[in-house]
């Protein structure tokens, strides 16, 4: 059996704009820069290699998405599953979102978990208004997203009185499903939300056609907003 030997070159050949893979070379470059010995083109190349450029917006949204402060808004059964993701098995702390704030002034993510009754809707709206921008809302479970198991006089879908970013289906959604929903929200915040099934089935271009007049604002949407400041009904 023949054994072939060859001298290995650098594992990753150096690409323009990237620091040299060899640690010693990087060390020498850094020493030179600190001494002030790098000049001209060499200095420019060094700076390019060691700084990550981005827009301010992207950086801000990256940090916002990774440090959401959810608010404790447990209404009904979904609240128990929301408490489960705080538990040790589906640990929400590994994402950095374990700081559940009770005060709306300190929170930026409202996880509406549970059925929204007619009496509670103005209260939720008031609390959502008290939250400071930027704020997001997740409608967890079937009851607040659509009407859920109960479609009757006593419930209100949460979309009717406040803007919702992500709807998580389920009755109650598994903690993993809620995590998936919050991670989707994080990608939305970062600006690159996936297309979902359209991407999987190569169906980009099948988005719904909005009625004419929507985009340019000539047609007013039928809005059903709860007027701020008035909380009768309690």
């Amino acid at each position: 059996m023949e054994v072939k030997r060859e001298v290995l070159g650098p594992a990753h050949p150096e690409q323009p704009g990237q620091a040299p893979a060899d640690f010693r070379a990087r060390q020498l470059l850094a020493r030179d820069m600190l001494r002030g010995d790098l000049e001209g083109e060499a200095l420019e190349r060094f700076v390019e290699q060691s700084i990550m450029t981005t827009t301010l917006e992207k950086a801000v949204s990256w940090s916002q998405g990774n440090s959401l402060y959810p608010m404790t808004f447990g209404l009904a059964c979904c609240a128990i599953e929301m408490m489960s993701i705080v538990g040790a098995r589906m640990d929400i702390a590994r994402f950095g979102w374990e700081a559940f704030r009770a005060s709306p002034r300190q929170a930026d993510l409202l996880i509406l978990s549970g059925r929204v009754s007619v009496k509670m809707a103005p209260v939720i709206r008031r609390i959502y208004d008290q939250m400071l921008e930027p704020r997001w809302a997740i409608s967890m479970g079937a009851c607040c997203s659509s009407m859920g198991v109960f479609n009757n006089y006593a419930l209100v879908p949460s979309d009717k009185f406040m803007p919702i970013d992500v709807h998580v289906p389920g009755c109650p959604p598994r903690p993993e499903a809620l995590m998936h929903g919050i991670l989707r929200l994080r990608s939305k915040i970062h600006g690159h939300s996936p297309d979902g099934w359209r991407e999987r089935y190569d169906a980009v271009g099948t988005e719904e056609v909005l009625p004419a007049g929507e985009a340019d604002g000539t047609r007013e949407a039928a809005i059903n907003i709860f007027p701020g400041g008035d909380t009768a009904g309690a």
Partner: protein
Amino acid sequence: MALDTADYRKREESITYAAETAGQGQTHELLTLNIGPHHPATHGVLRLLATLEGEVVRDIKPIIGYVHTGIEKTAEQKSYWKVIPVIERMDYLSYYFNAMAFCGAVETLVDVEVPPRAQYLRVIHLELNRIMSHLVWLGTSALDLGAISMFWYCFRERETILDLFEMSSGQRMHTRYFQVGGVIEDIPRGFATKLRKFLADMPTRADQYADLLEKNQIVLERLRGICPLDEETLLKIGVTGPLLRAAGNPWDLRKAAPYSSYDKFEFKIPVGTVGDNYDRYRVRHAEIYESVKIISQALEGLPEGPYITPDRKIALPPRHELATSMEALIHHFKLVTEGFRVPAGEAYYPIEGPRGELGCFVRADGSAKPARVHMRDPSFVHLQALEPMVKGAYIADLIATLAMLDPILGGIDR
């Protein structure tokens, strides 16, 4: 209607405390504080109008209805087996109990007999649900008191129980496992092994919870001697369950009027002496051990047989029969489209839930849909006991008492 709703706000804030009897001749200003409905320490969306003098609670008025779902109205629109998922979501921590009360009431009306294996399986799941409800109660109550790490320990046990529920029925919560006439499916292979392992672990874990809490000075000061209520007042209000047992009355429907083979198991009823918060905590904690005993007895003595009544007019026939038997196909079709009809009558079926007497009233009018379903929820009645308990106590005691009361707003508001 001669009622004047215009001055409801005045009546809402009516206080029963007379300022002159404040004592020491010096009256302080009374402050009406609104606690809730969104509050981290109220267990759900409960709104309390507390009238305070300094930090002492002089009057308290609970205002509920913030998670009212119209479950009873929705239940009238659905056929009997479709009511089960709707009624399960009422008291959302004891879903098996809700389903059991409803199925029991319908079984009384239809006069169908539940096979013994189904009864034992029901007992296993009911007691697992009782342990799970007490664990969540313990975790969240300790969270209210400030012992935050209890939350994670209790939820770790809860995850094991939910794994068991997922094994037997596919769902973690609101499992639709109990059906009229039995249970929907037999337990799978591996359930018994996993359950035995859980039962071996659980008493040790409960001991660990006791070690963590019971010798802690802060927990003792916040619970011992705080807000006791005597048995007489509790009975007049209609309180049952761990609250009544903490006051010394050993009333438990599992022993007094056994249902679903509870008379075949040996277990004790933990009873308190003083009726303060500490007793309420101890009673619920001790009930965990008793439930473990019941489950192991049920598991060891699990009889063979059908897991649902063989009456094809009530229960769906097994799938393999649909290929061979014409009657099975017809029964299946009728049951799925219309549902079984229940002869006219009324039934009230009470069971012992984790919070007290959970009763279901069903009125049937001969059709395939119930004419009235009403759940007698224990938390609804127990909320009336909050006022006599906390009168004259501090706000911190109010929070601790509310935690020990174990209210579940889903059951209160329905």
